[in-house]
């Protein structure tokens, strides 16, 4: 019944309009290299303060879906992924476009994106309610060990070294600590500054890490331009039925991979598309054609990255843990709208959850239609001069940071965290673990302290309670496996020839 009511709600004019605006805006921004869904969502959050919470969440979710798909356009036509998740699409999308078939490359990508989104939408609706029910059994130790596992997992799977991933996650935890500690009302790490009493607020930190660091990077790389391929006038983007049928197995397999990787806490769409691309290549009858404009490569990458978005909503809704760094913004927006994601969400805000799930499927359908009819026009403006965009984006950062608390201190926080994000990025510290660490720090500390109060200071429940023990063992296994993999990679690393001379 709730699903039908939600369907009725999302099809009513306002929610539908917000999803449409979100998807269209997401596609547009996702198509522009250097901008991304995270940036758009972080900039939009303050504009949603006066909106109904369900509509706000639908708008942001639509942006997420749109931006993941929009990256396909510039990846195919410019060889520059609009979003990191479209990186794998450049390997086959651009060569196919170079061969004079940009329409076919886009149509394969758009079709795969639609199916990826729909399949993960089905998983979302099927898995979220029972998982949420299961999560009712979680106590403080289960939450603490789950967050621990999520941080280890994202640190070990993020691109770059395990040590840098772990360091990034721990820095995220540290960034959340200054200010008033909610557990006992103590002020800490304020360094004598009155403004630090409230700590670093969520929105300025997200704007700094996602937006400010990106615009500094964009200015640094302002000369980076793609070699554009134009689409022929009569070339259609509407996917052909025969192509869909031919790639059905690849689509289903890659969508399942994308959804599963999305469910794992903290891992983004780029990893999904890499894994799906690799598996498609392994099982392909023509693996050598991958990277030369092969249909299978585009289909695998695009269905996986779109499926990831749906999969990542599952841990967000059921246990309040972001499935991907971008979902941290959705989590933050929900908290700002007084909606607390977690096992009780189905009971406290059932209408919102069902609207989000049904809206996610609708967003994918809207994405498909917008891409089919407008991708050609969007492609013309993806190379927009960044000299116009950078100042305007910063103005939105300022508005967003200032509007949430009316403090200029928060605007300085945006600039500060922008520099932190830039330096970490230049030194190849992944930013995903930082954001997830920052968002989860509060839960982690509060649950540990509650757990220790119950166990009278003993850490033993981490291994004596079955669910907590499973998470602890999983965290240790992930850690050990990552250390082993890195050790093996280092062992195989040989000095460059010139250094041996």
């Amino acid at each position, binding site marked *: 019944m709730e699903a039908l009511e939600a369907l009725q709600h999302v099809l009513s004019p306002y929610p539908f309009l917000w999803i449409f605006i979100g998807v269209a805006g997401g596609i547009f921004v996702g198509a522009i290299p250097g901008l991304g869904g995270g940036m758009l969502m972080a900039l939009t959050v303050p504009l949603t303060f006066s909106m109904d919470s369900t509509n706000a969440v639908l708008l942001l979710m639509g942006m997420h879906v749109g931006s993941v798909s929009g990256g396909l356009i510039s990846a195919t036509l410019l060889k520059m992924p609009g979003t990191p998740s479209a990186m794998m699409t450049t390997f086959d999308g651009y060569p196919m476009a170079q061969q004079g078939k940009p329409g076919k490359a886009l149509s394969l990508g758009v079709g795969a994106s639609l199916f990826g989104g729909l399949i993960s939408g089905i998983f979302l609706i099927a898995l979220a309610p029972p998982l949420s029910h299961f999560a009712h059994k979680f106590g403080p130790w289960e939450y603490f060990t789950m967050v621990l596992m999520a941080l280890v997992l994202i640190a070990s799977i993020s691109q770059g070294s395990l040590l840098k991933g772990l360091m990034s996650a721990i820095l995220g935890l*540290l960034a959340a600590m200054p200010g008033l500690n909610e557990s006992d009302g103590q002020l800490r790490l304020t360094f004598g500054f009155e403004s630090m009493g409230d700590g670093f607020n969520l929105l300025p930190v997200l704007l700094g890490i996602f937006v400010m660091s990106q615009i500094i990077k964009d200015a640094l*790389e302002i000369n980076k331009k793609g070699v554009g391929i134009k689409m022929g006038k009569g070339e259609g983007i509407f996917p052909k039925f025969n192509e869909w049928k031919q790639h059905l197995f690849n689509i289903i397999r890659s969508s399942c991979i994308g959804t599963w990787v999305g469910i794992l806490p903290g891992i983004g769409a780029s990893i999904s598309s890499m894994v799906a691309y690799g598996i498609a290549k392994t099982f392909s009858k023509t693996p050598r054609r991958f990277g030369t404009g092969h249909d299978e490569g585009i289909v695998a990458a695009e269905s996986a990255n779109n499926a990831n978005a749906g999969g990542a909503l599952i841990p967000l809704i059921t246990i309040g843990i972001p499935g991907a760094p971008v979902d941290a913004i959705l989590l933050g927006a929900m908290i700002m709208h007084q909606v607390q994601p977690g096992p009780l969400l189905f009971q406290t805000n059932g209408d919102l959850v069902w609207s989000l799930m049904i809206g996610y499927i609708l967003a994918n359908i809207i994405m498909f239609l917008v891409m089919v009819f407008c991708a050609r026009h969007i492609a013309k403006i993806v190379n927009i001069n960044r000299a116009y965009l950078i100042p305007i984006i910063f*103005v939105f950062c300022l508005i967003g940071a200032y509007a949430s608390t009316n403090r200029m201190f928060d605007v300085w926080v945006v*600039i500060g965290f*922008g520099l932190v994000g830039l330096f970490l990025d230049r*030194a190849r510290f992944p930013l995903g673990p930082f954001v997830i660490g920052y968002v989860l720090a509060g839960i982690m500390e509060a649950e540990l302290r509650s757990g*220790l109060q119950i166990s009278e200071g003993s850490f033993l429940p981490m291994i004596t309670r079955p669910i907590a023990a499973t998470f602890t063992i999983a965290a240790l296994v992930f850690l050990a496996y990552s250390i082993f993999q890195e050790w093996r990679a*280092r062992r195989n690393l040989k000095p460059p020839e010139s250094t041996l001379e």
Partner: protein
Amino acid sequence: MPLNYRIPYLDIIISLSLIGLATAVLIAAKDIPPPFFDPIGSAAFPKYTAYLIIFLALVIGIRSFLLSRLLAPRSKRGFKPEPLLAAYTVVVPSLYVLCMNLEWASFRIATTLFIFALAGLLSRFDKRVLIVSAIIAPVFGFGGQYLLTEVFYMDLPQ
């Protein structure tokens, strides 16, 4: 040392900075009162986080230095980076925020000047960009103030 060794200076600088940060956190954590009603108190999390940061920073720094000879030389980029423009993207917004922070200019005036100035600097005073940004800047400055305060009911720096 041959020129094609690539010592990851940034890793080493970041490691040293993080050790400095963690030391500051440890000093600040000393001032936090002991726990009243739970076994660990408010100081435990910052302290152990700082210890972990020091440990990881040492490992990253030492490893970066030792492994630098195993790293391939920096690969060539397909474009010329513009560190000066990146610096403008930090300095000009900081001046813009400072102007409003010290109440030297209102949002509408500061925003108009900021958009025009930064767009001009980033485009190296390209005539076309200057003309377009001369139109965009007041639209965002004056129009933005009206839209955000009158339609979205948001507060802006006055």
